[in-house]
């Protein structure tokens, strides 16, 4: 697997889209930190980048890359390689390169301006989201042979997890207003990797508002180390499960 991974990474890090993505992130991050008078406000602006732009770019780029690599994948399949090794190499290549782009574009500015717990949490959340959406891209690409459909599916998944899911949650909240919903909310947050990351990051930034109001459950769950560990375990699940399903599909796929 290492053999292929190395070259896939080599290919993707030289990709123009990835280079532009890195540069864009770096420009936004540096300007956010240097324009905002107080750097925690800068972190808040970065929060939106991490929650919206990073997943979108990661999922769309990865999907397109997989479709564009169809012939390359065929060529690899004709070589003495296990299918699993090929698929994991592609996943690894995308994950490593995009994570690297994020580290350079967002990680470095954060380390310069906010080298503290909050900053590290944002970097961790961003890295996890990167890998999660690469994994989901693999899944959606394994569902259909049609490139346009695959990209459409990916964009929809992104839209779903960044907007539609939350809208549904909000709707449910109003429908069941009379019931205690905090515990349900904790569970619901695990169904969306973006929500999960956002809550973890917010606990580092806007902690006062979060803790004060919803009462003990939110704080007890998310506020302590077990909760943080659980959240990242949840995110790991969001990486592992789509990857596993896509791997199973790829192993049986006719190319």
């Amino acid at each position: 697997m290492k053999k292929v991974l190395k070259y896939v990474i080599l290919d993707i890090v030289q990709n123009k889209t990835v280079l532009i993505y890195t540069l864009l992130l770096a420009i936004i991050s540096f300007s956010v930190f240097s324009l905002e008078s107080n750097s925690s406000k800068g972190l808040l602006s970065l929060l939106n980048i991490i929650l919206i732009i990073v997943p979108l770019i990661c999922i769309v780029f990865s999907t397109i890359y997989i479709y564009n690599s169809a012939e390359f994948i065929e060529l690899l399949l004709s070589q003495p390689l296990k299918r699993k090794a090929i698929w994991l190499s592609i996943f690894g290549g995308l994950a490593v390169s995009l994570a690297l782009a994020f580290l350079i574009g967002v990680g470095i500015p954060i380390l310069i301006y906010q080298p503290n717990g909050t900053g590290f949490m944002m970097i961790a959340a961003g890295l996890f989201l990167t890998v999660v959406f690469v994994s989901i891209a693999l899944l959606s690409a394994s569902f259909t042979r049609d490139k346009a459909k695959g990209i459409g599916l990916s964009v929809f998944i992104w839209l779903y997890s960044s907007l539609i899911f939350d809208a549904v949650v909000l709707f449910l909240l109003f429908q069941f207003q009379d019931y205690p919903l905090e515990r349900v909310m904790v569970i619901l947050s695990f169904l969306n990797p973006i929500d999960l990351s956002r809550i973890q990051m917010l606990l580092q930034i806007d902690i006062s508002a979060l803790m004060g109001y919803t009462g003990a459950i939110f704080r007890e769950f998310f506020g302590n180390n077990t909760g943080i560990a659980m959240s990242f375990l949840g995110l790991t699940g969001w990486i592992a499960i789509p990857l596993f399903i896509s791997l199973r599909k790829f192993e049986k796929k006719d190319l």
Partner: protein
Amino acid sequence: MKKLFPILIFAIFFGLSTQAKTYFVGKGREITKIQKAIDLAKNGDTIMVDAGLYKEKNIIIQKSITLIGINHPVLDGENKYAIITIKANNAKVEGFKIQHTGRSEITELGAIMIYDSYKVSAVNNILDDNNFGIFVQNSKSCTIKNNSITAYGKNELQSGNGIHCWHSDSLIIVGNKIKGHRDGLYFEFVKNTLVWRNISTENVRYGIHFMFSNHNTYIGNIFEKNEAGVAVMYSANINMYNNYFLDNWGDATYGILLKDIRDSNISGNNFTKNTIGLYMEACSRINLYKNIFKNNGWAVKIQASCEDNDFTKNNFIGNTFDIGTNGSLVLNTFTGNYWDKYEGYDLNKDNVGDVPYHPVSMYAMIIDSNPAALMLFRSLIVTLLDKTEKLLPGVTPENLKDNKPVMRPLPL
């Protein structure tokens, strides 16, 4: 000699007229017990106590004497007794370390108990691990100054208040440091009192708690990291200037909670990092000006039961929510404040924004009725809702607005 002469005359005159005596108490002295010296003394006498450990159960002062500790002699209540009880005008207790009062569910036991007296002073004492610290009842014009009052309260029931005043008038409470009691300062039916430069931190309940206490002034106090912040109720004509309400956060924690407060001034105060900086319920005619609200969860929560309160020239910076409210009825005014979330413009460059600022966001309203919605905090859907609401107000109270928001932070 010429210079000394008037002083000498004065000294003789003074000495003759009062005939004050000074008693010394200590190990190896004639008098070894403080209570014995008090019994011997007459009004106006002074008792000096050497350093050392004194376990005299409850010391009772019923004369106008001055009791001074040299190098903080330790008065120990052996976890059973109240330690000093004063029932005399013009008595003074200074320079002691007073520790380990008893705890009782029937009577209040404190380190310094002042009953029915006039012009009593408690100065420069160190109070450690007591149930109540300084307890004042039915007294007038007492001075409580520069005491350091520490307890280690775990819960509200087993802990007394740091400075507890009941039915008193014209007290002066200055420069005390109170920590770890139930309420740092507690006033009930106290009036015309000055509370100045005290520091009340990490108390089990409130940093300061007063009820039915009118015409009091609070200046330059610091209330920090109290479990429930500060709560003041049912009072009128309160002046609060230049106080600090800091780091009070938790499930139901306020920088300050005002309930049924009327005709008061709140100015120059600093509310930083509180879950709710200022909470107002059934308040009326309060002028709030030149305060700083910074990095709070909610800067201000103002219930619809409030009326005629006026917010002028305050700075709102870095708060998650600027204003929260529970209804659409708005009978309060906001004028000339600085809001860091203001996105308007100032075409004529007079530092006043040309469009009004609506400090209540739709999401703040949602949270108020549905706290679990906090899960969606800072999500895209919430941002979109807020922006839509700004363009087409439907849910947020339309007339809760600042018509003259300033463009730059006010120099406070």
